[in-house]
């Protein structure tokens, strides 16, 4: 009986055995039992039990320290070996680490970009409550002022409403009091108006001024920090007055520092009520100009569809009366605004961003594949080391651990290289994407932890196959003297995979380039070269005809005309009724010389004539797309009739179609040509279009400027070339292409590095074979040919796989464009040739070395 009581507590024993492996540590338990029994005999079970538990705790603590300590030492020795290996094979190590480093740096840079894109508007504290007001299916995303007003007055759920409007290129002038002649002026690229709630809805940090009152009074203006610096230097501008467009004076009520990733861009914000003074309160409350971005902020708990339905109900009657359409409103969450580009100034390219993530990932995969290939190929070099280790008693587990830690080490070295490379390349990358990314994102602990984990993970994943392969080499094989190379089939598959990715990237780049080239050179149906545009000012508006006369009298000026703005960018949306069908159209006002200035071709009927005053206000000219939209068989002579109209380009009951012009691409080639209606309404003509002769362009420009100053002194003269601004809409695409090209080149470079190393290795392995062949009489060229055919086969297979994949992907991307460059075979063929060329060059280079070597050297080894 005594014996049973003299056993140590079972739980403690069980706990202890958890911490001891299948080693001699178990003997300690034996010691502890023995001692326990002695204590139990001397001092009783309770004391013995206490002692036992105390021993347990001490021991567990000690074991943990012990195993950590020795693991570190083991790890240290592995690192020493790994470093020694790296130094021994400097070339191969360099190739591998360089490839990985490049891959990692690309990944980091793209990561920065993607993270920045996805972070847009996220700095707004209330982001989940903010919505943009628009029609269902995004048909109309800009609203008239009355919508915002009505919502804020009548919809209770809309706690705050903000209307936002912007105009480009205004001028600001600051005359410091008491120092005449010391005035400072600057251009405001984006001049914006907003309701005072803008600071409640959006999170915009204030540097000076009071957000509560900054925009409550008319003619108050808030500046961004950079603009304030340009006008006021380091002085606090609050309370000062600045003059806008040589016209009204505004009081500065604050300085703000809006975050870079905010989809609304502006250099200044002025109070919305100012518009009541500048364009009139009735106009401000009307349904006339549909050009405002309208945002609402709903309470925490909300049902956006319910609110949207309420809004539809609220405006059903007024909008129906005006446009004869029943509006259906929808609320679009703020977080979608940046990528959807609802008439924002800044638009994000969601598809592009996703493509980049894919590209970054692929490049990383290529780099990892390199590592796997080279590591396994080099197996025979390590065979001796592995064999001896195994004989001495190292377990396979230990070897796997060793090789895994080696590849993790490689990855770490590559990561350091990659970080440095990314930092160095950052400015170049920024200019490529026209952004201003910084490394700040990397300095937060979340990123550091996930990056380190990622690196370790990559190391482990790419090291798994080599580790398992190398550790399973049987010692007997080494002693027998056989040479190992790993599964050649597996390596070939990896190479093909690399080639496929590279080929897809090349084809992609070529396609993108072709499409962009096509868009740049396509005949747009009008002459956009050598035309300058600029907005008229107040003084010139009054003297348009004198202005035109003077301009035409200048040598170098070929044609002058006025228009509502840039075609396609500015227009009035009006509805027309025909054959019982009511549709809305874009109406663009011009003067009769417009067609000549741009070389638009008349298809039917006639153009506006300066001699016929009756053409004004009451006639219109359609483009072919408009004719189709109306469904008119004989458009000329058709009369549109309407009873009422709002602020329209046609202040008349009847509108007669007098002519049809051929379609021309006034919008980007992304879109199909939309229907357009031309009107001749002098009151809407704010922009000059001047064609100058290319020969004396500078002189002509100088004359134009002089005339401007003569007729409207005090207004700064700013102009732009139409072809430049036109090309600007492709800027996004161009940037996309540039990035794509760079990354493709890098990806190919990495694949090439891998191929280089592998070819070197393969050739080395077959050194003896080559030597024998030489002795038997093979020529150098036949040897080179032999090695090339093997790899060429892989290239062909890779291309066969890559072509359909690339075609499919490119087809998806090209659907962004209404007008596509024809898909030819040239990109694919070119890619095939390039990949073959690179392969042949690399393999030949390596095999030449072997083929030219003295066969005696290789055979001596026997």
């Amino acid at each position: 009986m005594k014996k049973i009581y003299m056993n140590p507590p079972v739980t403690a024993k069980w706990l202890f055995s958890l911490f001891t492996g299948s080693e001699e540590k178990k003997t300690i338990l034996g010691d502890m039992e023995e001692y326990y029994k002695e204590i139990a005999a001397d001092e009783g079970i309770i004391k013995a039990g206490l002692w036992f538990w105390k021993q347990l705790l001490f021991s567990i603590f000690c074991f943990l320290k012990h195993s950590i300590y020795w693991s570190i030492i083991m790890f240290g020795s592995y690192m020493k070996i790994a470093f020694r290996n790296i130094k021994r094979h400097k070339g191969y190590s360099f190739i591998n680490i360089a490839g990985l480093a490049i891959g990692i740096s690309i990944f980091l840079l793209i990561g920065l970009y993607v993270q920045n894109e996805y972070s847009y508007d996220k700095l707004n504290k209330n982001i989940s409550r903010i919505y943009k007001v628009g029609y269902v299916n995004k048909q109309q995303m800009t609203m008239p002022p009355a919508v915002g007003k009505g919502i804020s007055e009548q919809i209770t759920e809309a706690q705050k409403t903000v209307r936002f409007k912007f105009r480009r290129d205004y001028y600001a002038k600051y005359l410091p009091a008491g120092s005449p002649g010391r005035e400072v002026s600057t251009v405001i690229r984006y001049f914006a108006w907003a309701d005072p709630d803008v600071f409640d809805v959006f999170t915009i940090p204030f540097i000076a001024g009071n957000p509560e009152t900054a925009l409550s009074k008319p003619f108050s203006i808030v500046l961004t920090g950079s603009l304030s610096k340009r006008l006021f230097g380091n002085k606090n501008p609050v309370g000062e007055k600045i003059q806008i467009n040589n016209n009204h004076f505004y009081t500065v009520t604050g300085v703000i520092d809006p975050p870079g990733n905010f989809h609304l861009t502006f250099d200044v914000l002025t109070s919305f009520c100012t518009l009541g003074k500048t364009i009139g309160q009735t106009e401000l409350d009307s349904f006339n100009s549909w050009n405002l971005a309208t945002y609402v902020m709903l309470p925490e708990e909300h049902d956006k569809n319910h609110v949207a339905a309420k809004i539809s109900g609220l405006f059903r009657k007024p909008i129906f009366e005006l446009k004869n359409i029943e509006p259906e409103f929808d609320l679009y969450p703020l977080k979608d605004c940046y990528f959807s580009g609802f008439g924002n100034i800044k638009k994000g390219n969601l598809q592009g961003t996703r493509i980049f993530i894919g590209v970054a990932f692929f490049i990383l995969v290529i780099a990892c594949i390199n590592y796997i290939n080279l590591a396994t190929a080099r197996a025979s070099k390590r065979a001796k080391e592995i064999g001896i280790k195994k004989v001495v008693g190292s377990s396979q587990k230990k070897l796997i651990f060793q090789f895994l830690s080696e590849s993790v080490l490689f990855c770490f070295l590559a990561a350091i290289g990659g970080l440095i490379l990314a930092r160095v390349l950052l400015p170049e990358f920024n200019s490529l994407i026209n952004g201003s990314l910084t490394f700040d994102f990397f300095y937060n602990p979340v990123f550091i932890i996930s990056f380190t984990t990622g690196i370790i993970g990559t190391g482990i994943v790419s090291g798994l196959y080599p580790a398992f392969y190398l550790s399973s080499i049987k010692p007997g094989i080494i002693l027998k003297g056989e040479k190992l190379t790993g599964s050649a089939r597996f390596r070939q598959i990896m190479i093909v995979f690399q080639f496929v990715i590279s080929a897809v990237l090349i084809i992609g780049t070529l396609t993108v380039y072709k499409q962009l080239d096509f868009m740049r050179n396509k005949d747009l149906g009008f002459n956009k070269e050598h035309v300058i545009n600029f907005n008229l000012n107040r003084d010139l508006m009054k003297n348009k005809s004198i202005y035109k006369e003077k301009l035409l009298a200048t040598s170098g000026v070929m044609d002058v005309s006025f228009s509502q703005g840039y075609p396609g960018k500015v227009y009035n949306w009006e509805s027309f009724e025909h054959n019982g069908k009511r549709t809305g159209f874009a109406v663009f006002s011009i003067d009769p010389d417009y067609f000549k200035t741009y070389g638009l071709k008349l298809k039917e009927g006639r153009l506006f004539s300066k001699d016929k005053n009756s053409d004004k206000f009451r006639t219109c000219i359609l483009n072919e797309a408009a004719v189709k939209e109306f469904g008119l068989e004989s458009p000329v002579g058709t009369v549109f009739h309407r009873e009422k109209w709002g602020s329209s380009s046609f202040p008349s009951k009847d509108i007669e179609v007098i002519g049809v012009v051929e379609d021309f691409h006034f919008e980007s080639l992304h879109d199909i040509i939309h229907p357009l209606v031309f009107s001749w309404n002098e009151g809407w003509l704010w922009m000059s279009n001047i064609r100058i002769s290319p020969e004396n362009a500078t002189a002509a420009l100088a004359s134009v400027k002089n005339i401007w100053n003569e007729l409207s002194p005090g207004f700064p003269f700013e102009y732009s070339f139409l072809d430049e601004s036109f090309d600007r809409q492709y800027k996004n695409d161009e940037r996309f292409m540039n990035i794509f090209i760079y990354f493709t080149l890098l990806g190919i470079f990495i694949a090439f590095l891998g191929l280089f190393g592998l070819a070197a290795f393969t050739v080395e392995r077959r050194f003896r074979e080559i030597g024998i062949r030489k002795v038997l009489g093979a020529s150098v060229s036949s040897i080179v040919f032999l090695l090339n055919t093997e790899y060429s086969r892989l290239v062909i297979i890779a291309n066969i796989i890559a072509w359909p994949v690339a075609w499919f992907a490119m087809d998806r991307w090209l659907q962004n464009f209404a007008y596509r460059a024809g898909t030819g075979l040239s990109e694919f063929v070119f890619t095939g040739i390039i990949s073959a060329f690179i392969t042949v060059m690399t393999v030949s280079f390596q095999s030449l070395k072997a083929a030219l070597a003295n066969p005696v050297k290789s055979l001596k080894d026997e």
Partner: protein
Amino acid sequence: MKILSRSDEILLLAIYRLKDNAYGVSITKEVYKKTGKKLALGPLWVSLDNLSKKGYLAKKIADPTPERGGRGKIYYELTPYGLNALEEIRDLQASLWDGLPEALSGNI
């Protein structure tokens, strides 16, 4: 030649004294007898393991006995290297204390 630390020295000397009977429990008893310190068995094993990895001790695993709940014993034995180390430390001790009076205090 690495200098033995004090605690290493104590353990090794205890093992030396115990001759064939140096295992976990007996070593703790011996050390307690000489120094009054009670060693916990787990940490003791760790120290002894380190000492044997450094080459001062050799381990011998004996058969399990029922009193120990069916687990074996590890007997420790000094290696020649360990003996050498002990002698070195004794010489060091002698040279450190050479010529100094019996009672240090009161004699500056």
